């Protein structure tokens, strides 16, 4: 297959394409033959029991984890050991972590402008203007000059979302964004994510928030023991799960 064909094959509306992806941690087979195509503008929610490989799956998208077999193509770029391609992908893919991973030595504003200034080579004024715009969109503009440690968990997570958006990513990855928040702060973060979804952002969200999945997702992916067990639109997924393991999982979390 020629290079241009490979590119065309990877494109064609697909933002992310996993083909036959395997990964091992030592001898532990954590991802098993993952095949999944995420279309541009599509919202995917990944759920499954802990240790099922959900986080590992989305961390393969920006190469925080390296897969050992198969191919991962993101926005037309296949991920290999080539550091240039990895950087290219990371510039276009934003990520929000369970523990926020804000930089504690920088103010919220500086957290947001760091990558645009140093990676996108944006002039400082423009980067700050962009950051203010996005901080006001996630409703924490008044916290811009505080340090992460002075904010509540929900505010920090919204700041982290704004920081990722400052790179104007085409794809956003969310790795259990509400799992380490106090219950009263979950909603403000989910609302922010819902707004983002409504604007047409391509998103993969690993979460246990089934209400969010039902409301926002185009498709729900259920993983267990490193493999994709079931993929379906939210209503049939929750109302008529087909695989036994999906039924068991849903019965455990939806009391």
């Amino acid at each position, binding site marked *: 297959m020629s290079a241009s064909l490979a590119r065309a094959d990877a494109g064609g509306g697909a933002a992310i394409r996993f083909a036959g992806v395997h990964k091992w941690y030592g001898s532990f087979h954590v991802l098993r033959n993952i095949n999944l195509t995420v279309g541009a503008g599509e919202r995917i929610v990944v759920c499954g029991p802990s240790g099922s490989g959900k986080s590992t799956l989305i961390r393969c998208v920006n190469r925080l984890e390296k897969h050992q077999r198969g191919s991962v193509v993101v926005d037309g770029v296949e991920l290999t050991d080539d550091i240039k391609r990895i950087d290219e992908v990371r510039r276009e893919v934003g990520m929000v*972590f369970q523990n926020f991973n804000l930089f504690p*030595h920088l103010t919220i504003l500086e957290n947001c402008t760091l*990558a645009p200034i140093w990676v996108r080579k944006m002039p400082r004024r423009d980067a700050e203007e962009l950051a203010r715009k996005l901080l006001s969109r996630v409703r924490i503009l008044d916290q811009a000059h505080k340090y992460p440690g002075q904010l509540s968990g929900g505010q920090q997570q919204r700041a982290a979302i704004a920081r990722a958006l400052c790179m104007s990513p085409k794809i956003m990855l969310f790795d259990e964004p509400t799992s380490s928040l106090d219950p009263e702060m979950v909603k403000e973060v989910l609302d922010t994510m819902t707004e983002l979804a409504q604007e047409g952002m391509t998103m993969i969200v690993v979460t246990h928030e089934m209400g969010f999945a039902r409301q926002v997702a185009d498709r729900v992916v259920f993983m267990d023991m490193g493999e994709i067990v079931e993929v379906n639109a939210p209503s049939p997924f929750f109302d008529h799960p087909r695989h036994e393991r999906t039924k068991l999982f849903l019965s455990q979390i939806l009391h």
Partner: protein
Amino acid sequence: MDSLAYVREAPEAEDAAPMLSSGVLAWARANLFSSIGSSLVTIGCIALIAYWLPQLVAWATTRAIWSATNGALCRQHQDGACWAFVIAKWDYLRFGSYPVAERWRVDLVEAVGALLIGWLLWTNAPRRAWGALLFFIAYPILALVLLRGSSLLGLPIVDTLLWGGIFVSLLTAVVGIVFSLPLGVLLALGRRSPLPVVRMASVLFIEFVRGVPFITILFMANNLAPLFLPEAWAPDRLLRPLAGIVIFSAAYMAEEIRGGLQSLGKGQYEGALALGLNYPLMTALVILPQALTLVIPGIVNNFIGLFMDTTLVSVVGITDFLQAMNNAIKDPIWAGPTIMVTGYVFAGIFYFCFCFGMARYSAHVERILAKGRK
């Protein structure tokens, strides 16, 4: 009658904290006289201070000899310090055997250096980036040209053989500090590098240098290095111990900094990588600022140790301040029972002032950095 259910009807008023826990008397009672034993220790310490302190002050001031041209007066008054000796030897203690006519050059280098360091250390100073540029690029060239001399500018060459005293001590310390910190950072990063060759080289360097006493390093730098280099490259006799001190200090610095690097969570690396920062940007903008801040106390501890270790360069024939003091004490004109004590007390005060200054400054920086961040 109490029931198990309860609902509040009026809010509880906010009240001031009890006053018993503050004030000088409360502090003294809690910390100095909390028990009979503690009271006895406190009183004992106060008594000792009251007995010793006036004598010490009198020895250093009222009973001391402040001016004399030789040791005769000091030999008569043995119950006080002989500051006249330090005053008479002051030029030698500062410059060693540097030619008298050229000593203005040392003064100039010291003054400019003090100015630039002040600029850099003053945390709110304007344009510190310019100060850093001047200090790290322009100043070393200026210092080298002025101290060593340059036939182009009509400044007579002064061989390093003649350099000595306080200015050599300060020079050694500043060169050691300025070079060992970046080298230590590189070694610490190297030790955590995923590239096996870089990692092995760093580990070997650090473990070798840490496993050898400083004096051995000095002798090796002094005697072995010239054997391995072509004669034309043979480094200057002052440069060799300087290199030794940098190498020695860098190894300890690297371990200190590695501690800081290890205390950062994986999340900081992942947060930076996910934003598209490459390794150099991530290290410079996210990792090092945090890691270095965490280990400021350890780094300053190393600086203080390095400043003390500069006194050891005398074993390879460099006349640092302490060696100059040793030489001065041996002067037969001043021979007397109070000379040695006076000389070493003065040297002690000198080293203490610098080290205490460094310690206080680092505490100040830590307070500034801690502000806002939690």
